[in-house]
């Protein structure tokens, strides 16, 4: 390596470390500029795509060239549409589109928290999707089994908590498997959790096509849950499949996890194991136990996400569960693995998800192009956060070698 190269590497390293030290205010500013930049790049892409595409009724015709999509209108629909047009008169927060945004946000808060918790323990849990699927199926089956036993008011009070608990148990047990494999057999959790996702999807598909399937339906699904076995809609229109109770439950989990990580001995063990496993073990942390416990807890939160999906959105378990678990990974990175940040990251995802349906409805932009825009926005907003985490790692490394004394190494 030449001197110039070394100097260049050093500059990059110092920049990253500096990025790792940014304050909360600066980070919000960075995220906002990244968002603006992604919209700008997206606008160009939509414009070019609109020139190339052929369509029935172009928005603009200039001589021989036609513009099929209006980029400004696309972004207007993507963001304002997702909120139900707050700038138009007569806006109410109860509008169905905003309910859809909150509905998606709610499930993503759970999956985001699930991934974030494992991340903080230094474990890359890619298996949240599988844990969500298993939790979702178990909660559906539990509610279906318990519904005839609990009649009247008892069912209305007990069925939903029972389903949530079943989801947590299912997801937790399914998370414990890769935890135990990592702790006692040194199996890499990235490999095992990815593979267990397939196992979850295929086993649940077998179960709902065969033994637990709905004989009255061509689809691969369980029989529908009774009305009392679903999250009751309060305030919002019941047709929107959104329940404030589920969102409140998500906030309870956010608060609980924040408290657990920041103020409990277990949370301290978990964080130290995540930052420096050998030092943690030297300090008296039972590494194996911490790994199993954190993956179990992570899986349980994912499983509750599955229970919410089943009991609030679908009203049954059906194969082809959307990729909430995988989106949870991005939500977590976007949030810097901070439970409080997960709420905002999940909200951004919820807006994008709900906004896409508005774009699909209001414009003739193909869903693939909307997917590209969503990906761009997420990439732009997540990357500074990703590099910030890298910078923190670098700073922590320098501290160890005593090269420079900058800030603490703990992720917040």
């Amino acid at each position: 390596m030449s001197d110039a190269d070394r100097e260049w590497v050093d500059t990059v390293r110092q920049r990253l470390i500096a990025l790792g030290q940014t304050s909360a205010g600066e980070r919000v500013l960075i995220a906002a500029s990244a968002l603006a930049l992604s919209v700008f790049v997206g606008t160009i892409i939509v414009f070019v795509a609109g020139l190339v595409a052929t369509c029935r009724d172009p928005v603009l015709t200039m001589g021989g060239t036609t513009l099929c999509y209006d980029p400004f209108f696309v972004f207007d629909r993507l963001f304002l549409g997702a909120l139900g047009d707050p700038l138009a008169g007569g806006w109410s927060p109860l509008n169905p589109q905003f309910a859809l945004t909150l509905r998606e946000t709610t499930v993503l808060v759970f999956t985001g928290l699930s991934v974030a918790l494992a991340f903080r323990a230094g474990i890359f849990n890619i298996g949240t999707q599988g844990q969500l699927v298993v939790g979702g199926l178990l909660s559906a089956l539990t509610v279906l089994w318990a519904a005839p036993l609990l009649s009247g008011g008892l069912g209305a009070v007990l069925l939903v908590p029972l389903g949530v608990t079943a989801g947590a148990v299912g997801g937790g047990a399914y998370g414990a498997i890769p935890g135990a494999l990592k702790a006692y057999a040194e199996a890499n959790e990235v490999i095992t959790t990815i593979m267990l996702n397939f196992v979850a999807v295929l086993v649940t598909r077998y179960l709902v096509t065969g033994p637990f399937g709905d004989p009255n339906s061509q689809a691969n699904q369980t029989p529908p849950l009774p009305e009392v076995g679903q999250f009751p809609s309060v305030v919002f229109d019941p047709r929107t499949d959104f329940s404030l109770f589920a969102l409140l439950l998500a906030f309870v989990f956010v608060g609980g996890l924040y408290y657990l990580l920041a103020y409990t001995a277990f949370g301290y063990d978990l964080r130290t194991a995540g930052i420096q496993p050998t030092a943690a073990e030297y300090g008296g942390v039972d590494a194996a136990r911490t790994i199993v416990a954190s993956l179990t807890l992570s899986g349980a939160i994912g499983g509750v996400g599955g229970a919410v999906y089943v009991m609030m959105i679908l009203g049954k378990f059906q194969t082809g569960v959307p990729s909430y678990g995988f989106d949870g990974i991005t939500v977590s990175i976007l949030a810097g693995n901070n439970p409080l940040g997960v709420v905002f990251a999940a909200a951004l995802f919820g807006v994008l998800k709900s906004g896409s349906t508005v774009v699909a409805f209001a414009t003739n932009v193909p869903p693939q192009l909307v997917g590209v825009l969503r990906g761009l926005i997420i990439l732009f907003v997540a990357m500074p956060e990703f590099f910030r985490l890298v910078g923190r790692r670098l700073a922590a490394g320098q501290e160890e070698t005593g090269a420079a004394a900058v800030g603490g190494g703990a992720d917040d």
Partner: protein
Amino acid sequence: MPVSRRTLLGSLGAATATGLAGCIGGGGGSDAAARVGMVYATGGLGDGSFNDQAQTGIVRAEEDLSIAYDESQPESTSDFGTLQQQYAQSSDPDYDLVCCIGFLQADALTENASQYSDQQFMIVDSVVDASNVGSYVFAEHEGSFLVGLMAGRLTTTSFSAGAGSTAGDSTNVGFVGGVESDLIKKFEAGFTAGVKYASDDVDVQTAYVGGFNKPAAGQEAAISMYDSGADIVYHAAGNTGTGVFQAAQEAGRFAIGVDRDQSVTKSSYSDVILASMVKRVDNAVYSSVEDVVNDEFQGGSVTTLGLEQNGVEAVFGQDLGGDVPQEVKDEMSTARDDIIAGEISVPTDPNQVS
């Protein structure tokens, strides 16, 4: 749930949707004879099969009946309800008909049909029992019978065309299904019945690969069928069937396509595709739109589109069709007439094939 709150919030929802649609404006024009919303199945447009076929129908309706339409492609099954609602709620433009393509939409539609009782819906491939929903199902077994008859005839003779040939001494054909469900079993039952109608001595090997988008698994299943003597394999497995075509090319045997004329949509395999059992989803869409335009839409009715209504048909491959012997074609068209006349009854359950 109390009805009063629902109505209140419902009108509130409609009001916001109005505001939303107001910004959209334009597109299509208000002089259209009717306005139709299309909610496709999850495979999306460009699948060369089911959804594209549905789109063909609405495009034809736009040209012939001067209607206007908008379309939505859901990302996952949980989007069906939302998209159906978006069309049902919209009052500017007001949609006269919402077309729901694919049986997976049935549950969401059952719920929405009762919530939006003055919106007309139609569903393809499933039956929703509601007074504002027209259901369109196909007699897949009837069309499958005809291609089965053809396969049964050709496997017992020495026949070669394009890149394939049959072994005269082999009396063996195959069926590859996507997911083992009542719907796909109708294809199997009709095909097997057609083969047995041609000759009782011909064996039918069947396999279900467990998915509609698994070309590799389809190829594996078909290879093992060709290896154990099958000359012709019929698939009812969506994109999984692409693997069946590949296997046919490798083995120098024949395949039969499904849903659309696959010798056209998958033209690189046209040298092994003898025929396709075409499901005219476009006709279902078109006739429902036509009924709406003529004010004859029958909510609550179930329309079965069989051979008689041209809902299903056996279409010969664009390259190999000419090589199929005329006597086989004649026999197929006689069988078609007999099925329509009720003289041949085609079973819908493989267990009932005698």
